[in-house]
């Protein structure tokens, strides 16, 4: 009896969404290593991490929001706004990147708080609120720069940070790792994480259970605002330039990574490591395709298409494992 249940546990672990995704990621890595040119080099792994840091950060904070059954479409625009404000403070305000960075994080928190206020006080749907601030934040960024200003005068040390490495990994990797650990602990090791899940699963139930639903939801959006601001600073350091069009479309890439990582778009279920795997899967795909010389001319178009295919495949396989589990349970009851 005990051995058979152990076997079942082992099988269900294999069929879990994250395991399927991990398998897909490894498959990608081995395939591109075999077929692509210079895929498995330290430099290129650095590229993959550096180029997906901002999306990764946004995905990591998008995940708790989706877990509560919400969504934040404004993070890409907020990244643009924060990049512009940060650039303006450094170039025209004479602030050091450290001070300007601190202020930018506060602005990000305030912007997240604005979203949270509209969602929790006025009880407006997150999709509508953040669709509004999606335009609002981008519009503000464009108004500040009048569409023309580009900020590129930063201290050399700041620019070096954006393109440098520590212990063989890009500087961004350590920040991404720290944020990932933080969010992982928050979601999987604290009561906050459990309350996010409860709210996404049944908001009214969570309220009757005495959870401070509004405060918890607000916390998720404020966190997203702060991390979007952090992503803006890293983006500016990497591209060595702040412009109003920074981060266009990143919100949807982040949502894609979260959903690919197995978080239900309706809320209630999902894991942080799944989200990370989702980010890695998309990042490896687009980088790997550009390393196959015979198709590199169309790799960018192909990677969009294959990301879509990957998403459908991963979700379908997740569903399949659920069906198998349900079928087993039924058979178990019948037997």
């Amino acid at each position: 009896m005990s051995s058979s249940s152990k076997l079942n546990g082992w099988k269900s672990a294999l069929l879990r969404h994250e395991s399927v995704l991990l398998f897909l990621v490894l498959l990608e890595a081995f395939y591109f290593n075999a077929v692509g040119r210079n895929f498995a080099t330290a430099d290129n792994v650095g590229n993959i991490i550096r180029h997906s840091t901002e999306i990764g950060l946004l995905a990591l904070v998008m995940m708790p929001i989706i877990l509560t059954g919400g969504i934040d479409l404004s993070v890409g625009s907020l990244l643009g706004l924060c990049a512009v404000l940060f650039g303006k403070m450094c170039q025209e305000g004479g602030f050091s990147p450290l001070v300007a960075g601190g202020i930018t994080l506060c602005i990000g928190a305030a912007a997240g708080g604005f979203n949270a206020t509209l969602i929790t006080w006025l009880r407006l749907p997150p999709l509508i609120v953040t669709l509004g601030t999606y335009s609002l934040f981008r519009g503000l960024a464009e108004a500040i720069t009048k569409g023309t200003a580009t900020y590129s005068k930063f201290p050399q040390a700041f620019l070096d940070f954006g393109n440098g490495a520590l212990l063989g990994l890009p500087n961004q990797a350590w920040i991404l790792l720290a944020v990932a650990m933080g969010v992982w602990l928050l979601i999987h090791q604290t009561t906050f994480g459990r309350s996010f899940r409860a709210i996404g699963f049944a908001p009214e139930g969570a309220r009757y259970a005495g959870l401070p639903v509004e405060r918890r939801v607000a916390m998720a959006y404020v966190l997203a605002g702060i991390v979007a601001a952090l992503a803006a600073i890293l983006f500016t350091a990497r591209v060595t330039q702040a412009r109003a069009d920074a981060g266009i479309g990143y919100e949807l890439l982040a949502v894609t990574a979260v959903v690919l990582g197995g978080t239900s778009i309706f809320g209630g279920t999902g894991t942080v490591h799944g989200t990370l795997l989702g980010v890695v899967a998309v990042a490896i795909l687009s980088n790997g395709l550009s390393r196959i010389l015979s198709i590199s001319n169309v790799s960018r178009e192909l990677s969009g298409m294959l990301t879509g295919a990957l998403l459908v495949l991963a979700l379908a396989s997740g569903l399949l494992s659920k069906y198998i589990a349900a079928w087993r349970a039924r058979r178990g009851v019948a037997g």
Partner: protein
Amino acid sequence: MRKLFLLITTLGLIMATGCNKPSESTNTAGSGGGKKLTIAFMPKSKGNQYFITCKNGAVKAAADLGIDLLFDGPTNTDPAKQNEIVENWITLGVDVIAVACENKEGISTALRKAQAKGIKVITFDSDSMPDARSFFVNQATATGIANVLMDTAAQLCGGEGEFAIITATLTANNMNEWRKNIDLRLKEKYPKMKLVETKPCDDQKDKAQQETANLLGAYPNLKCVMAICSPAVPGAAEAVKQAGKVGKVKVLGLGLPSENRAYVKDGVTQAVILWKVEDLGYLTIAAATALAKGELKPGATTFKAGKLGEIQLQGSDIVLGQPFVFTKENIDQFDF
């Protein structure tokens, strides 16, 4: 805890597949590439007909000179994309990178990184910071283009009246340089002409059409629309046509003959001004090849560019030649 373990194993595995075998893959690249040069060629945006024509020239040059050509570029306006593509090319191990730069300062960081790794860099169409590349393949000098545009506009308007400019983005480096020179020419030679507004169209035909329609409404005395990025010329012409102002409001601009042929023949657009775009792509690849082979060195005054013959240099600028005015009379002789 088991999940944490899974996470760490995952990261570990990715690092392991990532970092274990740099030497092996370098070998593959070396033997696979042989002595054939690999030149990577990047437009500002991939779908733009102007850059597709550029690419056709580049493909011809690649065949003539026996090099491998890589072509990639952004498909949207994400300002980080050009940097990312360059950084991927660096690790791919190409010999020369040729770029039409969208963000002068931003791309320069990535190009300097390439130079530090021993990869030769040239720019074409729109330049980077001068220290981030060896040469800039200049389609025509800014003054050359601006003078032809302003002179043609003045000629169409009879030397007086209001005109407006449609540009790609207000940040594009080459467009701003042209704008500055158009202003200079205007002040110097045509005191009776007045530039009423400059509108960006984000390199999109639809937006150019919309902006032109707005301008036609806002300035009833407008005599001429000057579109200085290629999608804007047919866009402006369509707006003038739909407003029923054909002939009353003249249209001219920098664009491809093929995209404007119908409007030119119908008399909506009076003049299309451009260099031979295919030759720009050809010259870029020819210069890149010569640079990689050591035939083109800093300080050179001429070099031999395949079928284009001897090409002149002005400092580190490789100049393609004078712009050309396509009109109703000659437009059928060109098929790009």
